[in-house]
């Protein structure tokens, strides 16, 4: 259901979409059942002349069943939802696959700074590519992000990835994603961070291997690029 509004752009996005649909069906059933019975009772037992209400305490065994059986069924549904939620959470937040690339994401009032590894494929070297409000990723590559904040809380939110993570000053939080959809999408700050919170918008560019390499080449200073063997786009 979510994917009809926001495309699924990461390897785990579909897990959240399925979980949501699964819960929607379960919860929707209970909701419709409750509201249906509720309105039916209001209609069925509307006041009529000369007809008195029944005296029911709710402690009668044959009536109490109407509470205890649904009660147990709700508990069973909860177990299924719990299972699904724990599985999805584990895959996204607890499990960390080996990264092929690492990017650093830095939030500050009110911009995102993204540090991409340069042609050497490693962070914290001279060829790192710093971009403000632009994150460039290669489709199909497993990334770790190192999330930091300079000042207040921010939240690194990429709707197409179905990913949110708060950035906390004084900490480096590591997480992962693998983009699966080429294109250009929104990055939000989803934690209020002051008067410019509504302006803290960035874009993620998910590119094929060739295009990504071309972008990297265009961003790499010539002096650095000269020392590094680099396959340019269209050179094959």
């Amino acid at each position, binding site marked *: 259901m979510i994917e009809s509004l926001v495309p699924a752009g990461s390897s785990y996005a579909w897990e959240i979409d399925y979980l949501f649909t699964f819960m929607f069906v379960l919860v929707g059933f209970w909701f419709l059942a409750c509201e249906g019975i*509720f309105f039916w009772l209001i209609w069925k037992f509307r006041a009529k002349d000369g007809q008195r209400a029944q005296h029911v305490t709710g402690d009668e065994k044959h009536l109490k069943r109407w509470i205890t059986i649904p009660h147990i069924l709700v508990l069973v549904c909860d177990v299924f939802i719990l299972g699904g939620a724990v*599985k999805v959470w584990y895959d996204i937040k607890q499990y960390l696959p080996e990264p092929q690339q690492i990017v650093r994401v830095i939030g500050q009032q009110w911009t995102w700074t993204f540090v991409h590894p340069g042609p050497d494929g490693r962070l914290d070297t001279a060829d790192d590519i710093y971009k403000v409000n632009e994150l460039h990723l290669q489709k199909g590559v497993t990334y770790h992000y190192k999330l930091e904040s300079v000042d207040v809380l921010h939240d690194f939110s990429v709707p197409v990835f179905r990913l949110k993570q708060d950035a906390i000053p004084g900490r480096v939080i590591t997480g992962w994603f693998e983009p699966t959809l080429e294109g250009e999408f929104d990055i939000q700050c989803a934690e209020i961070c002051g008067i410019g919170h509504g302006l803290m918008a960035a874009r993620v560019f998910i590119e094929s291997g060739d295009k990504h390499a071309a972008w990297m080449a265009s961003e790499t200073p010539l002096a650095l690029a000269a020392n590094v063997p680099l396959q340019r786009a269209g050179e094959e």
Partner: protein
Amino acid sequence: MAESIPSEAPAPADDHHGHEEPSFWSKYVFSTDHKMIAMQYLFTGMAMALIGGFMAYAFRMQLAFPGIDVPGFGIVTPANYNALVTNHGAIMIFWVAMPVLIAAFGNYLIPLMCGCDDMVFPKINRLSYQIFLLSAVVLLTSFFVEGGGFGGAWTAYPPLSAKAQYSLTPLGSTIWLAAVALEFVAFLLGGINFITTAMNSRAKGMKLYDIPIVVWMIVIASILFLVSVGPLIAGAIMLLFDQNLGTAFFDPARGGDPILWQHLFWFFGHPEVYVVLLPALGITAEIITVFSRKKLFGYRTVLHTTIATGVLSFTVWAHHQFIAGVDPRMAHVFTLTTLLISVPIAEMMFCYIATLYGGSIRLTTPMLWALAFIAEFLIGGVTGIFLGASGADVYFHDTYFVLAHFHYTFFPIAIIGTFAGLTFWFPKMFGRMMNERLGKIHFWGSIIPFNFIFIPLFVLGMGGQHRRIFDYSYFPELALPWMQDIRVLATSALLIMLSFQVVFFYNFIMSLRSGEKAGKNPWKSNTLDWTTESPPPHGNWKELPTVYRGPYEYSLPDREKDYWPQNEPN
């Protein structure tokens, strides 16, 4: 002075039954009468609701028509926008739901339903209201200081709330926090009274299981509040120190931890949801039993599930912090407890629905509000499951899905619950009936637009729209035409809903002046509040009542009348 003493006992010093007419000041301003204090809370709460509603109007106009010169407000700047959403939230919870549901109804109903002449500690009660009023005044001043009102969200997460260089509202945030702390003190004092009075001052013969559910609910809510608020008061003082004295409790650069605040805040914040929910549920129980002429289905089940919910509500707080940077393994525990709490609440809802079975249901205005509470709160309840489930919350956290969800809980609580209680007890409070026709116009004019405001916001939330953004045009995927259409739809529905409130105020004032005389018991109800005059005199009864049975003995087959008041001898 408020024990359930027999009437021949020697009169206490400040005699409730004295004949001297009290002066204006001692009657309306410095009164210790629980009913007057209830009215003070009620009207202060309603005035604050108008302010909170006006704020919603201003920021919803900005969202629907970005950059518009909002009539009555002006241009909404980003700083204005943040201050508006922050204070709308804080006001509606702390200065509307709390004073009206707990303090006004608690003060009004507990002595009347328990059959005593006043609260156990009337002077503490008065002090509670005075501190509350002070807190409201302090809050309102925060909008007019240099830098403007605080705009760091009602959750006030540091470091944004802790440092003026980040929030840019040095005075606003300090005054805001002081107002919140004062408000907590007021309700601590009030809560002591509610619990003590209900436990120690009941009428002769009223056993624990004879107490009307609404009184139980307010008592349990007060206990939850007393137990949960301590950590937050401590947190608020630490944050005030961080703001003004240069301490670093929440400053990571100097060894503090901003996450600590979140734990202190939500340890209080989640039970707080139940603190306001329970009185509204109690009011609903009283109304549906009266207007379906039925005993509450499973009184003890409802009471026990309420206590279970209260206990569990202390174990779920970190579901607000799944993605806040806490240990990811912790999410499993809090998902489990959060899903567990759905069980007693669902059971309670089943009992309410089952109460209608076999009834003789009359759809009066209070009954419509009470039924609407159940129908709408169910939406709030089931959508909460998506957010309590950690895996789904990764996507939904801080989106409009969350916003729509909690408005489907808080609007039924604070608005529907209040209107239910007010229309139900209006005859008792003021001695006159409200106009049913106007009451129904107001009901439908509020409830239909309400759904048109918030159902669409679920869709925006699913579309990834995040909260507290003054203008979505900076986010290409959120600036799509269909999304803007939905924002306009929600705002239009809000305008319609707000305008229908005029009908309520007109009805309220006209009924006060010229409504039909109510008599003692217009709804043919069983509880003790309906056995005294309307409005009840100072001291409530000439002779305090004695109780012979539970509060919900309706439609007994072998009795001629279909109700059996608690004070009627067998």
